[in-house]
């Protein structure tokens, strides 16, 4: 029974990927054939063949490595920065969420600004922060590149995790709270045995969003601060030579997509393991 499930899922995967490939190549063929220029002219420069992109991965770059290896190193650089920032931001966000859930006055004071942070483009701060940190002296020199980028991932994670932790902690069922009270449970016990488990679904919602945001933030940070090591740097690099070899940039995007999805999947798996929730009921 389970095997059939896996098989049908695999089949859907193949069909979807095949479908996307067909749409891509079909669009390219049709637009090139007719010469339509709306929404944009299609040729090997603007929309290379899928196989061209994949083949390019095997070609060497100016660094000596093959493209896929170069992109892998870049992806790992970005991944490290994003992951460190993500974890740090999540930890601080969780701690602040707990504090805000407990201290009413503090919450009323800080909440509007944390919520407002969800409505402004914080990502826009990336270049300023990364460049700025490049001129700061900590322990005798500016912080390493990956650390400057990690800061962005951290603050992009911090705000949603704070809001959702707080909301989640306060969402505990009042009757469950009374039950805890009847067990003469003290503050910490109630926190860990009831409120935090109630908050986990909310927290993971924020973490899933933050996972992607961290990767995006890391890429933008690298790119705007001209840091050459990560995917952002690769994008900068290949963008300059786009007219000579467009497939390099497309391949970079492929790796960036995989990195984003990868981060998301890690959080998704963690959620499945940690949170045991009734499955979504779709009718």
């Amino acid at each position, binding site marked *: 029974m389970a095997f059939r499930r896996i098989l049908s899922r695999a089949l*859907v995967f193949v069909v*979807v990927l095949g479908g996307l490939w067909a749409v891509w190549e079909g669009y390219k063929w049709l637009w090139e054939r007719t010469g339509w220029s709306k*929404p*944009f002219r299609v040729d090997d*420069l*603007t929309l290379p063949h899928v196989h061209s992109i994949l083949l390019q991965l095997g070609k060497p770059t100016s660094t000596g490595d093959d493209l896929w290896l170069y992109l892998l190193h870049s992806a790992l650089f970005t991944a490290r920065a994003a992951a460190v920032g993500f974890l740090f931001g999540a930890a601080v966000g969780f701690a602040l969420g707990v504090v805000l859930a407990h201290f009413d*006055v*503090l919450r*009323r*004071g*800080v*909440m*509007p*600004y944390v919520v*407002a942070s*969800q*409505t*402004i*483009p914080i*990502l*826009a*701060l*990336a*270049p*300023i*922060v990364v*460049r*700025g*940190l490049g*001129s*700061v002296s900590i322990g005798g020199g500016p912080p390493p590149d990956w650390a400057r980028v990690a800061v962005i991932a951290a603050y992009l994670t911090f705000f949603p995790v704070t809001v959702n932790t707080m909301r989640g902690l306060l969402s505990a069922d009042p009757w469950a709270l009374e039950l805890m009270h009847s067990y003469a449970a003290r503050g910490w016990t109630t926190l860990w045995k009831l409120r935090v488990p109630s908050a986990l679904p909310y927290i993971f919602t924020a973490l899933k969003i933050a*996972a*992607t945001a961290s*990767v*995006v933030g890391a*890429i*933008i940070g690298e*790119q*705007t601060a001209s840091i050459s090591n990560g*995917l952002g740097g690769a*994008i900068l690099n290949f*963008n300059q030579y*786009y007219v000579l070899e*467009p497939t390099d*940039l*497309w391949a*970079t*995007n492929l790796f*960036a*997509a995989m*990195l*984003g*999805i990868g*981060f*998301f*999947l890690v959080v998704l798996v963690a959620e499945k393991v940690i949170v045991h929730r009734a499955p*979504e*009921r*779709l*009718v």
Partner: protein
Amino acid sequence: MSGPGSTPSPSRSLGERIREWLPAVVVFGLGLVAWQWLLPDVLGVEDFLLPRFSDVLGALVDEHHLLLRGAWITLKEAVGGFVLGSGAAIVVALVLARWRPFGDALMPYMIAANAIPIIAFAPITNAWFGILSPWSKVTIAAVLCFFPVLVNTLRGLTSVDPESIELMRSYAASERDVFRRVRIPSSLPYVFSALKVASVLAMIGAVVGDYFGGSLEALGIVVLSAVNLSRYATSWAAILVASIMGIAFYATIAGIERYTLSWHPSVARRAS
């Protein structure tokens, strides 16, 4: 929980409202004080990290032509992308909800697609439409909006109570009836919550899309060129403008939500 035949709870007194907002106002004041004096003078925070508040205000005033022009261009890109992306997403969601097997099979892929760093495609859209064209940023904003709105609208259309469907079946309702009378109205809260998120994403797409190159007057370029010239006060002023626009855009959507969803218990109870 309202009792039988009751109207929404009575308005809170002025005193209660002040008490609710006072801490936030105090924090705002403290924040300003910190920005203006504590950080630069006491902690020695350098200009390139965070200029003094008065400096930022000054830049705001001095460069207001530049900033307003940039804001206008960016706003058009953001709204354009928002309308395009959200509109397309709602249409696709309606189709996928109607043909459930497709919708159910594709849902995980749409959720995954939502995790792709779309912004990294900005250089490619620049190649498509030209670096100076607003369309390259509109496309980024639209794609950023598309997946979240699609996933949430689809969820809303399919999260209908099974007994509701049984009820409609007892009225010999067609699929179209079920859609019109049940699925679409009950999906509205989900749709609006997605649109609020999309408004923020559209702003990000428009501003940050420019970081990969754009029209010289767009807000994102203003930020970048100001940073390059070490005119940090100007760059922060531009961010401030972008933030205000972001809040205004979000608030507009929230306002429309409150009007459209006036029947929803959470909205109606808050309206007192």
